[in-house]
């Protein structure tokens, strides 16, 4: 983190003060930030890993070391398999749909049309609202007895009568994916929109002059030039959606049982029965996120090399 200057041989006392300051380099200035990282990031990680090797009573007393028991218990959970599978499907579905829709939206917002400024502002709304509030809002809109969406769909003749959408995993998943896409769209669209505005107009014009159709120009010119923005949006969304807790917790709490839980929600559910096991699930999650971050770094380096 900090760059240590190579230690010089000790000089004569008069020259000492400026030398020392030089030796410390930028350290005094970045020290608060380093300390903050140590306290806020590294220390909790250490505590998390340590907790995963402990036996802890329900009132919070440490009852000694558990060795690898909590990991064994975690990997013995019958639910873990389908939770991990659901996590992968969830991430792929939400990120895939988000990127696809955002490409279209960004293209739309790049055009000149009356009310564009208003439409661009409106797109920020799902971003500006708290995700948990959005999720809870949707839960009530889908409520079996009082939900406004249920009433609306019944009146439109789309369904026969109010349904308990979130009680059944097979209908709860699509709704939750929809809400997660809804809250991911603004960020992704703006990232892509920023990318689109870096595409030089001359290039597109030149293509048009050469007789390229609109689709050809988009596929051969816009998309390749959009790649850096696309990749940044993709990887940040991957991490965000993988870690996404509020949408699922706000809508189903992962239930019934763990049937609508991703690994992050599952970790929280385990907390109710075994803190050590919950911590070991956190460690597994953390490892997966680190993998995603490494992927991100690799992709951004690859980006730089290409450009």
């Amino acid at each position, binding site marked *: 983190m900090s760059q240590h200057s190579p230690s010089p041989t000790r000089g004569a006392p008069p020259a000492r003060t400026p030398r020392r300051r030089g030796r410390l380099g930028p350290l005094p200035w970045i020290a608060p930030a380093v300390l903050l990282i140590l306290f806020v990031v590294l220390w909790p990680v250490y505590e998390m890993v340590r907790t995963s090797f402990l036996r802890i009573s329900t009132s919070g007393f440490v009852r000694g070391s558990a060795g690898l028991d909590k990991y064994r218990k975690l990997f013995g959970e019958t639910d873990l398999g389908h939770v991990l599978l659901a996590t992968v499907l969830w991430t792929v579905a939400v990120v895939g749909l988000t990127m696809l829709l955002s490409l279209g939206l960004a293209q739309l917002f790049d055009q000149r049309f009356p009310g564009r400024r208003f439409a661009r502002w409106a797109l920020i709304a799902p971003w500006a609202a708290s995700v948990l509030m959005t999720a809870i809002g949707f839960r009530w809109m889908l409520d079996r007895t009082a939900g406004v969406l249920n009433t609306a769909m019944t009146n439109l003749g789309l369904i026969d009568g109010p349904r308990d959408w979130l009680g059944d995993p097979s209908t709860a998943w699509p709704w939750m994916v929809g809400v997660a896409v809804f809250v991911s769209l603004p960020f992704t669209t703006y990232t892509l929109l920023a990318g689109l505005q870096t595409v030089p107009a001359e290039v597109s014009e030149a293509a048009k002059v050469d007789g390229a159709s609109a689709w050809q120009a988009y596929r051969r010119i816009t998309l390749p030039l959009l790649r850096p923005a696309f990749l940044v949006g993709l990887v940040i969304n991957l991490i965000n959606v993988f870690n996404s807790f509020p949408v699922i917790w706000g809508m189903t*709490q992962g239930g*019934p049982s763990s049937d609508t839980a991703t690994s992050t929600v599952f970790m929280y559910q385990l907390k109710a*029965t075994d803190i050590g096991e919950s911590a070991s699930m956190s460690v597994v999650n953390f490892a997966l996120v680190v993998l995603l971050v490494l992927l991100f770094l690799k992709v951004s380096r690859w980006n730089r090399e290409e450009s």
Partner: protein
Amino acid sequence: MHKRFLALSTACALGALALTACGSGSDGGGADADGKVTLKLVAADYGDKESNSSRTYWNNLATAFTAANPNIRVDVQVVNWNDIDKQVRTMIQSGNVPDVLQTGGYADKVADDLLYKAEDVLSTGTRANFIDSFAEAGQVKGVQYGIPFVSSARALFYNKTLFQQAGITQPPATWEDVRKDAELLKAKAPGTTPYALPLGPEEAQGESMMWELGNGGGPTDKDGAYTIDSPANVETFSWLKANLVDPGLTYANPATTDRKTAFADFAAGKAGMLNGHPSLIQMARDGKVDYGVAPIPGKTGPLKSTLGVADWTMAFKKNGHRDQIRTFLDFVYAKDNTLRFDETYNLMPVTQDTLREMTGSGKHKDLEPFFALLPHAAFYPLGDTSWDTVSAELKKTVGTALTGDPAKVLGALQKKAKDTAADK
């Protein structure tokens, strides 16, 4: 200049962080400077709004107590039900332990050896006054630690208007009656839920136990060993699945429907029948629902022993205030005080003199069916220190036995319960 200012302010900010982090230190036990002792009381809030908060009750009680015992002060802290477990856990971990705690469960604190035995902090007279079944439910391995505070018992509530509409004259007494009545309700009172079966996480351990009791089952056997997947319990869930869930006589997804939803539906006149406790009386009255109360139906006849639930008081050893706690608890359990609390919240008493008073005064006609049930109540295995964990597993998963294979779901739960019991 600018940089120095920045560094200075950063240092200040960090310093402030460090200071506030240490600021939550606490005073331990012992007497105050003036030789008086302050007892720290933490209690749950039974009110649902500011005007009927339990804080008022406890503050008045503390004032009256200090007036009678000038050497003991009581520091009252009332916490709402959603937060009390977490806050108590934080208090215990940070060493800022209360002297007296009034909340939902006690056994996990016994496992960590934090509590006084009941005999250490209650006078003989107060101890003898408890209804036996409750005093017994406060025992861990034969020693009483949990001191019952209030209780409630469960019974079947039914909507008389809907029953009339469906042409039903008698409340159901057996499971077969429940099925038949539910079918009639479904046919004659469309748009309502014939039987409201809440097996969502809020209280699935209670609803499942009420049904299991009707088949001679339950979460544990007589010796306290877990029997979650006993043949009787599996049969209970198979019956529910085949006779209530699959024919659509209850909610489509009982495993995600919470008790508060079922209660709200009943109070809105949208549910035919359900298992409820006395707080539903006021809700039904507010909703202008003409309700009836009957014993919970079992497989072949009504339950002789219904599910009883109690909340608990316990005394912590940490601060060493045993004698002061005893004086205080004797005051808390005096008839006038318990009666006032029970009447404020429509709860059931745990002491014999208060029960006699409430039964005899004629002021509590609506609670009468419940008074009769109290002495025969069956309890969760509260004295088992693994119950809290097992109960959490039940809340989360037991409802899925109605959509999946009951034997498999209950079997997995039984395995977890056994592992937990072995781990303690």
